[in-house]
Every structure is written in structure tokens, then in C-alpha cells.
């Protein structure tokens, strides 16, 4: 849980330069984004370089990592490294789609509720709280079991649709503190509409907060997707890191000692999500002078 204080509005150009200056010197931010970037590139370019379908059966089952098979092979002779790079792709896809949709809904609900207040706020807040309490995974279980999710995109869509409430709540609270500021009053007096005030006055002043919210939603989506895959409700087409874990567990890689089957996918998920969290702390320090180490 990150605590983010509100940031006082300043001139945009100066703020941007200052932020960049501190960003480049922030070890946490650079390390975090560095790890994510490496894994992202691996997922982006890996499938092109490795070649071969990820689920293709090979002639040599259960071989430990070697020069030929970097991460070894599964019980069926599938190359774990090929699955791994394809899996990275779907993991990033789920994170971007799920996190993106959740961020958009969260922003819409949060901004409107926080800015309009009154009865609109009451209704939206009630809706947020109701969805917040329902355990996400349980709902996704039911939906996925009945609809039989096939693609990573649809999985990401449903994750996004269920994950937005805490973001909406956080953005609403943040909007509350901004809407009584003078510059918002000024915009209102000059006749700007609600949408324009939110888009031009309020959102830019909490853009760092919104970005950090998206990062947390991204990480959350990746974790939920991997749990769903592991239970056996993952996308039926393609590979993902969670599906690799599920297969390893289902075909008792544990008892057979095929550690190269279940260690890489989990390590990659941990690395992506952990690096994002660390980068988030770094971002917090960049945008919030109070937290900077002296």
C-alpha cells in the first residue's frame, strides 16, 4: 500500500524536466524499469528468434537445461524456453489489457464521483464498494467456467472489468482534494464543462498518481491471470506463464524433480510484478520531493 501525498501544481515544463532529472538518478526506478524492459524485450523478440510452436512435442522429454534446450524440456519434450518467451508475451498482454481497462473505468468512476459529488457520488461510491467486497477471483472463476475463455484478450477484459474498484476509490479521494482548489474554481467560472475541467485541470495535476495506479493495476492483473491459469481456467489457445505452472503441477513435475519446468515461469512473474512495485516506489520519490533521499 503506497501512501501518496498530493502534489502541488507547478509549471508543466519545469516539473517535467525536474522529474526527468530525479528519475534518471533514482536507483529503484531504473532497476525496476530495467528488469521489466529486459523481460518485455525477451517476450517481444524471443518468439521471433526461437521459432517453433510453444506446445510442439519434441523427441527428447524431461531433459535438464542444456545448450540445445536452454530451460530444458517438459515431460512431452516441449522446449520450456520457447514456452517461456511466448508466455511472457501473454503475461504482458494480460497486464496491459486488464490494467488498462481497470484504469480507464477507475478513472471515469473516480473522477465523476469525486468531482460531481452529491447523489452521483453516492450512487457511484455504493457501486464501487459493492464490487470492491466481492472476491475478484471467485467471480472470474464463475465467468470463465461458463463462458470458456479462449484468448488472452478476453481474459484481460474480464480481469479489467472486475479490478477497478480500489483505483476508483483512490482517484475519487484524490479528486476530492483537488476540486476545491482555486484553479478549478477559475475554470468553472470561465464556463468550462465538467468533462473539460476533469480532463484539463484535474487529471494533469494527478498524472503521476494515475500512472502509479496503472502500474499497480498491471501487477494485480498479472497475478490474478496467473492464478486463473493455474486453476485451469486460462486461455485455451496459446501459452502463458500461469499455464506453464499449471501444466507442471498437473503432470507432477514436482515429484519427478523437473525444477526447470516450474521455476522459470514463477520467477518471471515475481520479477515483473516485484520490479514494477519497486519502480513504483521510485516514481513516488521522483514525484514527491518529501520522500526523496537526501
Amino acid at each position: 500500500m503506497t501512501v501518496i501525498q498530493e502534489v502541488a501544481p507547478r509549471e508543466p515544463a519545469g516539473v517535467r524536466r525536474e522529474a526527468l532529472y530525479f528519475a534518471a538518478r533514482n536507483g529503484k526506478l531504473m532497476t525496476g524499469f530495467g528488469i521489466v524492459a529486459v523481460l518485455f524485450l525477451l517476450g517481444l523478440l524471443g518468439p521471433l528468434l526461437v521459432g517453433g510452436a510453444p506446445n510442439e512435442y519434441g523427441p527428447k522429454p524431461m531433459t535438464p537445461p542444456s545448450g540445445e534446450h536452454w530451460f530444458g524440456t517438459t515431460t512431452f519434450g516441449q522446449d520450456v524456453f520457447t514456452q517461456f518467451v511466448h508466455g511472457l508475451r501473454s503475461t504482458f498482454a494480460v497486464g496491459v489489457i486488464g490494467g488498462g481497462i481497470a484504469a480507464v473505468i477507475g478513472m471515469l468512476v473516480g473522477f465523476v464521483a469525486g468531482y460531481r459529488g452529491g447523489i452521483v457520488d453516492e450512487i457511484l461510491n455504493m457501486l464501487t464498494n459493492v464490487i470492491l467486497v466481492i472476491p475478484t477471483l471467485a467471480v472470474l472463476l464463475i465467468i470463465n467456467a461458463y463462458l470458456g475463455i479462449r484468448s488472452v484478450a478476453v481474459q484481460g477484459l474480464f480481469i479489467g472489468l472486475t479490478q477497478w474498484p480500489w483505483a476508483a476509490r483512490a482517484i475519487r479521494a484524490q479528486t476530492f482534494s483537488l476540486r476545491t482548489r482555486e484553479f478549478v474554481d477559475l475554470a468553472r467560472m470561465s464556463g468550462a464543462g465538467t468533462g473539460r475541467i476533469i480532463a484539463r485541470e484535474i487529471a494533469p495535476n494527478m498524472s503521476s498518481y494515475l500512472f502509479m495506479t496503472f502500474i499497480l493495476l498491471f501487477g494485480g492483473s498479472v497475478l490474478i491471470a496467473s492464478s486463473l491459469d493455474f486453476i485451469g481456467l486460462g486461455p485455451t489457445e496459446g501459452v502463458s506463464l500461469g499455464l506453464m505452472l499449471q501444466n507442471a503441477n498437473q503432470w507432477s513435475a514436482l515429484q519427478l524433480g523437473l525444477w526447470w519446468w516450474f521455476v522459470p515461469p514463477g520467477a518471471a512473474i515475481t520479477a515483473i510484478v516485484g520490479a514494477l512495485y519497486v519502480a513504483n516506489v521510485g516514481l513516488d520519490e521522483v514525484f514527491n520531493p518529501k520522500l526523496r533521499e537526501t
Partner: protein
Amino acid sequence: MRRYFGRKLLIYGLTFFVAVTVNWMIPRFMPGDPVASMVARANVTKPEAVEAMRAYYTNLFGLDQPLWQQYLNFWGALLRGDFGVSIWLFPTPVSDVITTAVPYTLALIVPSVLLSWVVGNRFGAYAARRKLLDNTVLPVGYVLTAMPYMWLAVLLAWAFGVILGWFPVAGGYSFSMRPNWSWTFLLDLLHHWTLPFLSLFLVALGGWAIGMRNMIIYELESDYSNYLSALGAPSRLIRRYAFRNAVLPQITGLALQLGVLVAGALVTEIVFAYPGLGSLILKAIQNKDFFLLQGTFLFIVLGVLIANFIIDIVYVVVDPRTRAGMAGAQA
């Protein structure tokens, strides 16, 4: 205070209503003919099970009745505790299947959640503003929270179960035993319980420690802390005050994290083939036992709502501002 609880109960009531409605709607508004496709997908070999299933579905859906009537019937059955009949364990009622699994899940989740919360908070509070500890606790905490629950479970099972052979890696008790109240059986239960408990405990621990550490630093920068230290109060006293303030958001955080914790418990159970709700869900999905799945869903929602309400009560006990009707917790 009455307003506070009234609001909370309204939200929980609405949530339960929404959950039940979703549960009712999904099979009905799914594309295609629900009865035929479900009977086909069930893939049951026993002909009497297929027949009973078809009859049950048609009867339960009451597809000749108007929609509102179907909806009311659904609620009626639910309030009588009738979740339908399991297809996987035909003809055991779903409610019976769930009640045999629930104790295992509760025995895993309650101690691990409470202990990780308490230990994590202590740890985080202690590490805050202590250079050496902070530099170790923080990275370890981030790695732990970022871990998918099932992965840590698999790693622990591999290290302690397969390589070292200290703990069993599957089941809630040895297959050679039958549940009874003897000491040997209880020890056996404990033996099987240790690893799943440990993995749940560890993943949750990291998040609480980080949250607490951040809150303590925030509190130590506040005016009252500065004032106290200016008066010359010992730092232990200041930290104690900071802790009491910092623990409030952590209680709210516990309520917010419940869904994630339950999800973690479910996948951990699957790794260890622990006979709780998680394994039940896996079986339900593998056997296309939708009644069981839906029953489990409602059960989990109900459990989370009850836990939420308990946390609300605790919050009122801990934070006097909510009792006085002042702004404390937001609904």
C-alpha cells in the same frame, strides 16, 4: 455508530444480492441452450446421473416459467440451503460437499492471515527508519508480495517435501488414515498443514511489512511525533504512538485484501491437493460440476462478507472516532 453499521450492512446486503443475481444470470444468459450444453459438457458416464441432471436443470431453471418466477424460485431454494446436487459426487447435495471442505480451508486461512498480519506489522514497524533492517526487509518484502501464491507453494513443496522429505506434499492427512480424534491423526493433520500454511503466511507477510513500514515513516514525520520528540520523549514512546495510528489503515487494508488472500488460499490448496475449497473448485471445473462451482462461489462471497463485518466491528473497537460518530473509517 448506528449510521456506520447501517451503511456497512447495506453495502454487504447489496453485495450478496448482486452475487446471487450474477450467479443466477450467468447460466441463463449464456449463449446457447444451457440445459443441453451443460449436460453435454458434463460428460457424465452414468446414465442415471445424466437423466437426473437434465431433469434437475430443467426443473431448476423452470424454463417454461416467466423470468421473475425463476429468479424468485432461485432465491427460495437458496434460503432453504438448497444449492443443488453435486455432479462430481452424485448424488451428494452441494451443501454437504462444501461443509466437509470448509474446515480445512478455514484452518489454513484464518491462522495464516492473522499471524502474517500481526507479524508483518510488528516487523514493518520495527524496520522503519532503521537503516540496516530497512535495507533487508524492504527488498525481501517486495519479492514476497510479488510472488504468485502457487509458485511459492510449489517451491516450498519442492524444497521441503521432495528434496529434504521433511513434509508431505499432498493431501490433508495420510492416505492410510481415516479421520478420527486420536493424537496420531491430529499430528498427521498438523504435519500436512505446515507447508500450505507457511506459503500462505510468507506471501502475505511481505505486503503487511511494507505497508506498515511506510505508514510508520509517515506517522513519524507528523506534527505530533515532532512535538513529542521536541519535548524529549523517548523514541520508544513515540514509536508506540505512531504504531497505534499506523495500524488503522492496516486494518482497512486487511478488509481490502481479503479477496486476494482467499484466492491465494485456493491456489495453494490446489498445489498441495489440500482437501479444502480450492481443491473442490478444481474438481468442479475438471468435472464440469457447475452446481458445486456456483455453491462454492456463494460460500466464498458469504465468508468474505462475514469477515468484512468482523473487521468493521474490530475497527469500531480500535478507533474511538468511529464510535463518536466523527470521521474515521469511510464506508
